């Protein structure tokens, strides 16, 4: 069955390629297989590095006290800084270090991909080791299993599911950031690495060929879905139910399993995603809820400062003088900082509210009518597989023709943010709806609650923790996307929207002002932490009041 699916998929992809190459008129179209190969290689190589380092550091952090004290807060801080914020710094460093040679760009791209992939694997490993049930740890102790034997027979089997779900996410994130990593403008010049992402960007901006861009987007999506089938979904299945403790049951009709193609398209994919996502839900919520000691907090602060110092240092060796710092920071545009901050916050808030509104109504629909839940998972599944950043050029090119440059970019930016932020809310909410215990549904039936009463007394409170978790994740990814979506290198021109993200991009990519870049990174990190502290942590605590219940 698997070989059949594999062969069918490969055949379909091959014919898609042959068809596209013969039907599309574009000077670079014959390079499509090569671009695919390069993108695949880039993402796979980075993934392997992430896997090895994630496993190593994860085991170190989970099994040793010092490791845990240093690594966990360090990685937590690193993951909460918007990844794309590092990127300009990495570009500056690698381009100047290799004098613009392709290897420098390649390393910069891989660093960006790495910073998007590493966290899911690391925290997956740490979470899984910490979650090994006490009775198993005690059983191992009582049979005197320790050292290598303990790692081999207890730890490794326990982290396999986390590695697989972490890998699924890392792999997805890699494709997500591919286009940002492969198509770069720096100092008024375009740098691009051979790959599917840069080809898509070029198709949209340089050739002005939206159709080609859409074709490429479809190709990328098909590839992502196909590779997911072949790897993660199969592995998840093999990891077996014994090791998994899914957060919620999957009750998909078993009858689908017996016809080849249908099995391929339904059985593997859809239910498995829930498992991995349910799992992520736990990892992230436990890592988020963890309370750090004073030493760990100190460590984290030192890390951030060191990191930003490093960013400033790499491009301009030597400690900058006070005058230099003054000169870099006291530029006229600095007066706009409060305005920019307000713009970005407003943009994020609007996108968040739209996402929340849609996700909530879908969640309520799914709770009230069981049939809807069955429709929503496939929607999620396909939507999730589209690398959303790749949608950006296509959307922008078509919208700017209708609304003109700035308004077009504003709408594109908001759409991108919604498209990016909604999935975390959506899946967390729909998942929570599914996990409402039968008894509680029965109670509401027995009491004779009507639609609105049920929504108010049962559905909304039941999904509140999921809304909070989903919100935290969606804001984290939103901060990231905002850096990408406010700044648009459009052929040789650059279009930008007033905002923190574009300010950061301009400082780094147009002016090479690393001191300002470091300063803006600090501001952004402070904002991320402030929003987290002031809003989400409070809500989490509120939700925790009943979280221990059989929910």
């Amino acid at each position, binding site marked *: 069955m698997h070989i059949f699916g594999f062969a069918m998929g490969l055949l379909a992809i091959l014919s898609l390629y042959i068809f596209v190459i013969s039907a599309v008129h574009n000077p670079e179209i014959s390079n499509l297989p090569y671009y695919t190969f390069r993108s695949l290689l880039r993402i796979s190589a980075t993934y392997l590095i992430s896997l090895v380092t994630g496993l190593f550091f994860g085991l170190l952090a989970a099994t040793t006290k010092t490791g845990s004290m240093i690594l966990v807060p360090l990685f937590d801080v690193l993951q909460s800084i918007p990844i794309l914020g590092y990127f300009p710094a990495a570009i500056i460093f690698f381009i100047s270090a290799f004098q613009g040679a392709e290897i420098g760009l390649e390393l910069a791209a891989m660093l960006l991909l790495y910073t998007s992939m590493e966290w899911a694997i690391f925290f997956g490993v740490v979470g899984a080791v910490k979650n090994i049930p006490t009775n198993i740890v005690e059983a191992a102790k009582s049979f005197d299993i320790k050292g290598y034997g303990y790692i081999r027979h207890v730890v490794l089997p326990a982290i396999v599911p986390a590695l697989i779900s972490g890998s699924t996410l890392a792999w997805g994130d890699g494709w997500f950031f591919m286009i940002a990593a492969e198509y770069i403008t720096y100092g008024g010049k375009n740098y691009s690495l051979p790959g599917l992402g840069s080809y898509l960007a070029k198709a949209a901006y340089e050739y002005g060929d939206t159709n080609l861009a859409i074709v490429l987007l479809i190709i990328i999506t098909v590839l992502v879905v196909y590779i997911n089938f072949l790897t993660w979904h199969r592995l998840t299945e093999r990891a077996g139910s014994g090791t998994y403790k899914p957060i919620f049951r999957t009750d998909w009709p*078993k*009858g689908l399993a017996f016809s080849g193609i249908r099995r391929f398209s339904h059985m593997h994919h859809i239910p498995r995603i829930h498992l991995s996502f349910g799992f992520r839900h736990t990892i992230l919520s436990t890592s988020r809820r963890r309370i750090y000691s004073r030493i760990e907090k100190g460590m984290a602060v030192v890390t951030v400062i060191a990191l930003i110092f490093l960013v400033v240092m790499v491009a301009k060796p030597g400690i900058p003088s006070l005058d230099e710092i003054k000169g870099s920071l006291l530029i006229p545009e600095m007066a706009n900082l409060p305005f920019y901050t307000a713009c970005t916050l407003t943009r994020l808030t609007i996108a968040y509210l739209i996402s929340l509104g849609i996700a909530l109504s879908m969640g309520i629909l799914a709770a009230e009518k069981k049939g809807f839940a069955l429709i929503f998972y496939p929607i999620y599944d396909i939507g999730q597989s589209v690398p959303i950043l790749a949608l950006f050029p296509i959307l922008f090119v078509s919208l700017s023709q209708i609304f003109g440059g700035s308004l077009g970019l504003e709408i594109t930016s908001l759409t991108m943010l919604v498209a990016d932020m909604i999935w975390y809310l959506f899946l967390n909410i729909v998942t929570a709806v599914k996990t409402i*215990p039968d*008894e*509680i549904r*029965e*109670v509401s*039936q*027995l*009491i*004779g*609650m009507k639609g609105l*009463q049920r929504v108010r*007394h*049962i559905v909304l*409170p*039941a999904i*509140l923790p999921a809304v909070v978790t989903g919100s935290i994740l969606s804001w984290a990814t939103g901060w990231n996307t905002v850096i990408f979506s406010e700044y648009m290198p459009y052929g040789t021109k650059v279009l930008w929207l007033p905002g923190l993200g574009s300010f950061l991009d301009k400082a780094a990519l147009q002016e090479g002002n690393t001191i300002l870049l470091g300063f803006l990174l600090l501001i952004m990190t402070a904002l991320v932490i402030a929003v987290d502290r002031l809003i989400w942590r409070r809500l989490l605590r509120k939700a925790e*009041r*009943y*979280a*221990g*219940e*059989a*929910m």
Partner: protein
Amino acid sequence: MKVLEVRNLSKVFPGERSIVALDDVSFEIGNDEFLCIVGPSGCGKSTLLRMVAGIESANGGEILFHEKPISGPNEKITMIFQHFGLLPWKTALENVRLPLEVHGIPKEGAMKIALEYLGKVGLGDFMDTYPHDLSGGMKQRVGIARALAMKPEILLMDEPFSSLDELTASTLRREVLRIWADPNLPTDTFLMVSHNVSEAVFMADRVLVMSPRPGRVVEDVKVDIPRPRVEHARDPKFFDTVEYIIQVIEKACGGKLPGCEVNDGIG
């Protein structure tokens, strides 16, 4: 006087391999009666209870409540659950209040009734506590208060003591019997589902024994032990009745016990 009559009830769960959960089940319960249904796991006894509660539909036959067929939830029939069924986001008081308010009792009145019933189950001091911070026994007391506050005629109980530790369960059993005997409470007819035979003999007037799937009523055993049963729980008659019911279940399972989880722990 009969309060509830179940007539030729059957239930099929459709699916690839459809499951016949209940097949031609008939019995009746009189006013003031305490009836217990026992049977092996999966014999459809919980399904039967849910059909009486009006939250599960029948494929054949009917259930009559005061001669009228049941077609949906009825405020005169309430239920307590194995896992308590409390809303974790509501305090003890709010949990008891909610059904009252849904049925249109104004907030003030609902509050008064809820407090009164929480007091009756000994939880007056815990009205503002969330279920998370209550012990299992206390949670079930809230469940009982919530069910009784509606002043139902029939109280349904779905294995109400099986997720509690034995000491707590034993205390609560006596309390439920006290409530059943209380002339000041309008709730006089109790229908309980259990897989604990001693518990059934300890509490019920009649024990209905069901066969494994498809569930049928195999025997209707009248428990002829005087009350209060606490004083007679060591009588030979008590043990004989328990033993007899276990034999009936074993026979219904075809003489083999595997797959027929029969709990004969002391109630």
